């Protein structure tokens, strides 16, 4: 960890204190390179004699005095002299020492530990796997001082309840596997530090979500794939590696091996009722970042802190509703748009969540009163008012169903980031509602869910035959559900330009970024939560 600390203190904090880890090609390769040297063994043992030199692999050594432990890849002992050898996957760097500082410090810690344990150690060796070269590093006073300093300041950092600030515009972020968790440039921008914001992670998910809607499906695992069978026939299959999430609507069967495999891979499995009601999740182990959850609860219990975040979310929602109306309702009276603007501004002045509820209600009334005008004349349905349980008309049924999908993705995302989705800052933690998911979803409701419903009706994708309309309510036919899900997936994978950060990413990624920024606002790393506003 000293290596990471010297590379970037924040990286060290996120990995070590918050318990987050993410693989990159580099970390996977590093681990593979180590496979050859690592083997179980905790103390010095004779692995090979080479003349008078004892070679011992994977030696764990510690010292309470130094307050550190280290695992030495290879220890060469000749009489009283011990030399630690560290394996590095890469090529030998072409600089003064033929080594990078973090690696030299890491090696020096091993050296100090050996000295503490009674060996005579004056230097160590770094072996570069790619170059097949050994480089001797001597433990000069300068290096030892740097190492002791790093150990001391690292101990101070661990006691902090907030991670150290991100590096500013550092080239180190490019190779860092935690860039999408750390959000260095985004966090700096929110704090008013740094200029250019680099997109340091892929713009969208490369994996595929699976939705199982129909009756009588069974989901199994077979030879590295998930297969979906119906009536003795395989209807779909996918390599395990390619799956981002599995959503089961209604009563499909899933085998335990399939479930365990997906859990082990961190793929969430969501269960929904036929009508799209979100029943629950099967997930693997819980995110370890307890510090974030503590900050979340602290914020939630504090009326002012939670109002500070909630008002930004509702501000975002009203602004985005306004944008959707302005774009799609050509006859929308300018007073309506102005009132929405006014209400949004009033959110920012609100002092508690009760007043916010009133503002949100007033805005929703204006917005939904114009919703029907956003549907084109060729749409066979009318929308009069928002209603649910049961939805009175196809438009309401479609809205409810897509909110269900959006909750699922936001919920997913919150779990991934390390939140408890059931405790929010605005929605009350009652009736098993995923309150924080509903909170974070507010700003995305109009631009994702409402937008796909409107589009699906306007372009004729959803027709009368896709609904089952009865006197007591309206529900979807199987076919209708599939069409709406397809429309939703298209939308959420759409890449848009982030209005603040300026780079292009998919909506799904934006939700993740917003969730992480929400965390920053709760841990008070940034001053306020900024909602995602579309132009």
């Amino acid at each position, binding site marked *: 960890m000293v290596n990471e600390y010297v590379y970037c203190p924040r990286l060290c904090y996120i990995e070590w204190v918050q318990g987050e880890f993410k693989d990159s*090609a580099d970390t996977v390769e590093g681990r593979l390179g180590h496979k050859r040297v690592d083997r179980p063994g905790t103390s010095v043992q004779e692995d090979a004699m080479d003349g008078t030199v004892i070679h011992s692999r994977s030696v764990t050594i510690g010292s309470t005095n130094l307050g550190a432990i280290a695992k030495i890849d290879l220890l060469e002992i000749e009489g009283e002299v011990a030399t630690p050898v560290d394996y590095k996957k890469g090529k030998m760097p072409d600089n003064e020492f033929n080594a990078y500082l973090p690696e030299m410090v890491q090696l020096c810690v091993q050296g100090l530990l050996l000295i503490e344990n009674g060996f005579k150690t004056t230097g160590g060796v770094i072996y570069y796997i790619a170059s097949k070269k050994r480089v001797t590093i001597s433990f000069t006073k300068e290096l030892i001082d740097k190492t002791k300093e790093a150990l001391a300041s690292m101990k101070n950092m661990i006691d902090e309840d907030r991670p150290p600030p991100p590096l500013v515009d550092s080239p180190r972020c490019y190779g860092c596997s935690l860039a999408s968790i750390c959000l260095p440039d985004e966090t700096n921008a929110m704090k008013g530090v740094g200029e250019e914001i680099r997109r340091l992670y892929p713009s969208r998910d490369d994996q595929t979500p699976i939705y199982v809607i129909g009756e009588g499906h069974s989901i199994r695992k077979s030879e590295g794939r998930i297969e979906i069978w119906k009536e003795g026939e395989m209807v779909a299959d996918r*390599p395990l590696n390619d799956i981002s999430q599995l959503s089961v609507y209604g009563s499909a069967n899933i085998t335990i091996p399939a479930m365990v495999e997906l859990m082990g891979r961190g793929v969430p499995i969501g269960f929904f009722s036929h009508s799209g009601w979100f029943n629950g999740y099967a997930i693997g182990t819980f995110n370890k970042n307890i510090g974030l959850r503590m900050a979340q609860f602290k914020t939630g219990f504090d009326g002012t802190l939670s109002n500070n975040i909630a008002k930004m979310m509702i501000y975002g929602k009203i602004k985005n509703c306004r944008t959707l109306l302005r774009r799609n309702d050509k006859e929308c009276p300018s007073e309506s748009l102005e009132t929405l603007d006014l209400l949004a501004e009033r959110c920012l002045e609100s002092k508690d969540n009760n007043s916010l509820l009133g503002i949100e209600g007033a805005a929703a009334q204006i917005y939904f009163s114009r919703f029907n005008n956003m549907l084109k004349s060729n749409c066979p349905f009318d929308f009069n008012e928002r209603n649910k349980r049961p939805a009175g008309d196809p438009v309401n049924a479609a809205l409810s169903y897509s909110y269900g999908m959006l909750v699922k993705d936001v919920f997913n995302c919150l779990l991934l980031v390390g939140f408890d989705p059931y405790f929010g800052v605005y929605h009350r933690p009652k009736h098993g509602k995923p309150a924080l998911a509903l909170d974070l979803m507010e700003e995305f409701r109009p631009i994702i869910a409402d937008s796909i419903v409107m589009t699906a009706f306007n372009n004729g994708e959803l027709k009368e035959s896709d609904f089952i309309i009865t006197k007591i309510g309206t529900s979807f036919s199987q076919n209708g559900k599939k069409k709406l899900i397809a429309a939703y997936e298209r939308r959420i994978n759409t890449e848009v330009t982030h209005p603040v950060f300026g780079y292009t990413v998919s909506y799904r990624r934006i939700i993740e970024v917003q969730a992480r920024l929400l965390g920053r606002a709760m841990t008070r790393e940034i001053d306020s939560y900024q909602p995602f506003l579309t132009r």
Partner: protein
Amino acid sequence: MGGLTFYLVSYDIKDEKRLRNVHRIMREFGVRLHYSVFRCDLTKQGKMILISKLEEVINHDADRIMIVDLGPSRQYDEMKIEFIGQKPEENYVNSIIV
């Protein structure tokens, strides 16, 4: 654009048991185009994991696996690969809905 690369992976495995193991691993990562030829769309780390898994099961003195890098996924696919006769089923989709 995502971060995937299109790799063509083909293998010659001299032993039946190892062949089954390699086939099982390949199915985890990609789609079969031919007997013992797979299409894999992988991130860089996905490729590293695939290689490490394969390295564990093959006999390095007898078997051979070839990995061809065909550039970014789903771009100019028709220029990269042509089929004569039966085309394999194209099952690339953004989402699976059944």
